[in-house]
């Protein structure tokens, strides 16, 4: 069955490659027949299913779709870039070529692209970097793009080479100073905002990082589109586990209403 572009599939995804690229992150390439494409920022629920007959770990894990080759073609390849955190991602890391994972996606609403000529600033930290590559690529076709990436050390900067291959300005911060400026990625933001006064601002990374990015941008009168990484059980709006508190009360579901939100709408004080 072929999906319309962006239509969510429930698929058996065959592992083509699951290669270690750093001390704790891997690149997973999956053959996903029928995958019809995605918009930047959308994600998939990946379940190790057949790998854990003991059902432990049990739940699928949300992962940004890093990129897709041959979307709409008979044999599209979906790429995921992920960091081993706990038991679910450790199970994923053990997947061998030829093994089959469950995949549901693409899910959620991605980033709205910048307007033609508007330009963009992308701030990525930790695993959040994986949500930004496709956005960077598409935004670069519409205007100047600055990408600010941060991690603890150079070896933990996921996908750095893929960003370097794009036509954009790349700035890096590492906490140990092994690459780029020493310190946090959000420290790079004020200069970027000053250099590109009209550019749309996007962020994905740990909650404290996005919060600081949102505050810095807001101080400059600039809105931020932030992609949240709340824990999820289902990914399609039925468990209500991923809820993010909104300013002014109530909740939004990160999987269904997001994962991308206007940072000013999120009640960061009440996020987990």
């Amino acid at each position: 069955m072929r999906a319309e572009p962006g239509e969510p599939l429930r698929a058996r995804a065959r592992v083509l490659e699951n290669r270690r690229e750093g001390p704790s992150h891997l690149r997973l390439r999956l053959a996903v027949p029928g995958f019809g494409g995605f918009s930047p920022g959308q994600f998939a629920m990946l379940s190790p299913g057949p790998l854990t007959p003991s059902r432990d770990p049990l739940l699928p894990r949300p992962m940004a779709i890093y990129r897709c080759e041959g979307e709409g073609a008979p044999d599209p390849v979906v790429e995921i870039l992920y960091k081993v955190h706990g038991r679910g991602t450790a199970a994923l890391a053990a997947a061998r070529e030829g093994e089959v994972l469950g995949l549901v996606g693409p899910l959620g609403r991605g980033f709205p692209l910048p307007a033609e000529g508007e330009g963009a600033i992308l701030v990525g930290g930790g695993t959040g970097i994986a949500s930004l590559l496709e956005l960077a690529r598409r935004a670069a076709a519409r205007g100047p793009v600055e990408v600010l990436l941060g991690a603890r050390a150079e070896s933990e900067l996921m996908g750095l080479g893929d960003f370097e291959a794009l036509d954009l300005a790349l700035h890096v911060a590492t906490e140990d100073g092994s690459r780029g400026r020493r310190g946090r990625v959000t420290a790079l933001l004020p200069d970027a905002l000053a250099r590109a006064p009209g550019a749309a601002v996007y962020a994905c990374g740990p909650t404290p990082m996005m919060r600081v990015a949102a505050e810095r941008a807001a101080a400059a009168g600039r809105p931020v589109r932030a992609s949240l990484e709340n824990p999820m059980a289902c990914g399609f709006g039925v468990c209500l586990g991923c809820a993010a508190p909104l300013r002014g009360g109530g909740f939004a579901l990160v999987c269904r209403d997001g994962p991308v939100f206007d940072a000013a709408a999120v009640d960061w004080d009440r996020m987990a």
Partner: protein
Amino acid sequence: MSSPPDLAVDLGGIALRNPVLTASGTFGYGTELAPWIDLRRIGGIVSKSLTLRPRHGNLPRRIAETPAGMLNAIGLENVGVDAFLEEKLPALPDGVPVIASLFGTEIGEYRAVAERLSECDRVAGLEINASCPHVKAGGIEFGQDPGHLARLVREVRRATRLPLLVKLSPNVTDIARMAQVCEGEGADAIALINTLQALDVDVETRRPVLRNVLGGLSGPAIRPVALRMVFQAARAVSIPVCGIGGIETGEDAVKFLLCGATAVQVGTANYLDPAAALRVVEGIAEYCRRAGVASVRELVGGIELPAG
């Protein structure tokens, strides 16, 4: 070739084409999973539990994984009975039995929700969620006290002529007694189990993993406990029993039928695979074919116990 097995069952006056329902709180309002599952091929849907007015839930973190299971403390979030009737229900295809789950923090709220739901002929039956904390009784679950449970079932029974299921809390010492209380107050069927009260702690922060501190445990980890409770409850009453807890495959479901369940509900497994309930239906049919069973009803209560 033999004819396909007959999967139809009657759950306390609700005719189901097969014995597989989706459990409350794990399937939304039914429409969310439509891209992946033909709803007309499962037995039916149980809605998220509904209150009189819309409710926001708990602050995050609301869910966490545990060995072969998960904890949740969603906190009663739902769209409210009016939005369910006006927006959610009409969006479901005809021919899909819909059981509406209801709860309240006081008996009056349960009764009011039951009355509203009973005005709608698209609702096939009601399921009382008795695991809700009873505000006036100091937060103890309705389903944890036989007296509270009896009053609750009695009052809701008066408010509706629809088939009435009572979903029992497993957080009790004597589940058979609770089942009997429901039967005595006129329930048409019982469903069990709801989640088991549980807790997990993060040793780095020394905090509970969930913001709510306590949560409900679900998934394969609870299946043997659920089977035990279904077994005990089914032997204590003559009304039908709907088995719930960690069901993922046809064989899991057959175990519940053998222990006395007439039907089952699939919960957490929907998160792993939005077509999980359909796989359970197919698995039951496959079992029947393999075991030479003509009707799934033959399996109900068919557990072979050791002599003596």
